[in-house]
């Protein structure tokens, strides 16, 4: 059976299992990257940033968003602090980019 299959059936480009493996390797590597990048220092960073901001303006925990992204060879750390309403422009964004030297 196997022999006939190999001779007469034009072999498909790739078996579905090989496709599954390839897709899994990509998604799993991506999700592991996210796991490593965020939980370690981001919560502490967020807390300290909040304390600094609070010295000057009363903001609460939910008003600060910290997000880390990887794009190509560099990481983007995005801080988004929503300041209280008395300011004419209530939303200010601050973006810090830094290279991490790897591809």
């Amino acid at each position, binding site marked *: 059976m196997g022999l006939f299959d190999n001779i007469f059936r034009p072999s498909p480009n790739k078996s579905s*299992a090989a496709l599954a493996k390839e897709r*899994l390797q990509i998604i799993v590597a991506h999700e592991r990257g996210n*796991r490593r990048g965020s939980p370690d220092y981001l919560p502490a960073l967020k807390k300290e940033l909040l304390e600094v901001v609070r010295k000057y303006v009363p903001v609460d925990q939910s008003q600060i968003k910290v997000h880390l992204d990887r794009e190509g060879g560099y990481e983007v750390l995005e801080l988004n602090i929503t300041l209280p309403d008395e300011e004419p422009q209530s939303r200010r964004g601050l973006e810090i980019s830094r290279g991490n030297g790897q591809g």
Partner: protein
Amino acid sequence: MATVIVVTSGKGGVGKTTTSASFATGLAQRGYRTVVIDFDVGLRNLDLIMGCERRVVYDFINIINGEANLNQALIRDKRVENLHILPASQTRDKEALTKEGVERVLNELRQNFEYIVCDSPAGIERGALMALYFADEALVVTNPEVSSVRDSDRILGILASRSRRAEQGEAPVKEHLVLARYAPERADRGDMLSVEDVLEILGIPLLGVIPESPTVLQSSNAGVPVVLEDGSDAGAAYGDLVDRFLGKNLPHRFITTQKKGFLKRLFGGG
């Protein structure tokens, strides 16, 4: 010194409860005092798989809340000595599963048992987190299928970051892969991820491969852990898995296509 083992997977329906029942039964068969706990509050099923559903009086939440003591709630298995079952509550919500409560019950069980097997619910909610939190070792049950493998990887991440061992900076939870519902002939054909594929992606040691087998459904129909059906492939595979867990060095069976004889090839189906 008791060992706490969580049977977990992330995804539902991959064989956690089947594995918990057979693993615990196999340990007890080999003479170890073993208790298996159902952490699936609200959806208890371990009792049914173990065939003791009509003997449930008190449950895990009753113990946590002090409404009964352990001796009242533990169900003694009628087939295998040294084996006890602690059923989940069918009526309460999972908020009742507190970290302090679970710890108290586990500490009490540690006095009397050598192995404490925690059957985790699917998902990554409280029940699943509580089931893995106190674990020393983990059996990660995976099917050779994309969503199951991905969810197992997610659970490995949680074991490495949110278990008590991780939080306290102790030695990490020891991880074991259990690959269930494996069909070697489909893997050979390239229609199913192979053992090697899954191992390469997850990167944890393989404890056992359980072949896809009609005996698993038959034994759950009857409420008999499949490890007791030692004439079947799946039962024998679970037996090997338990022996390997206890340190025996056994080769993996049921991972290659069985060679068929000429007559079987001619007359017996594919």
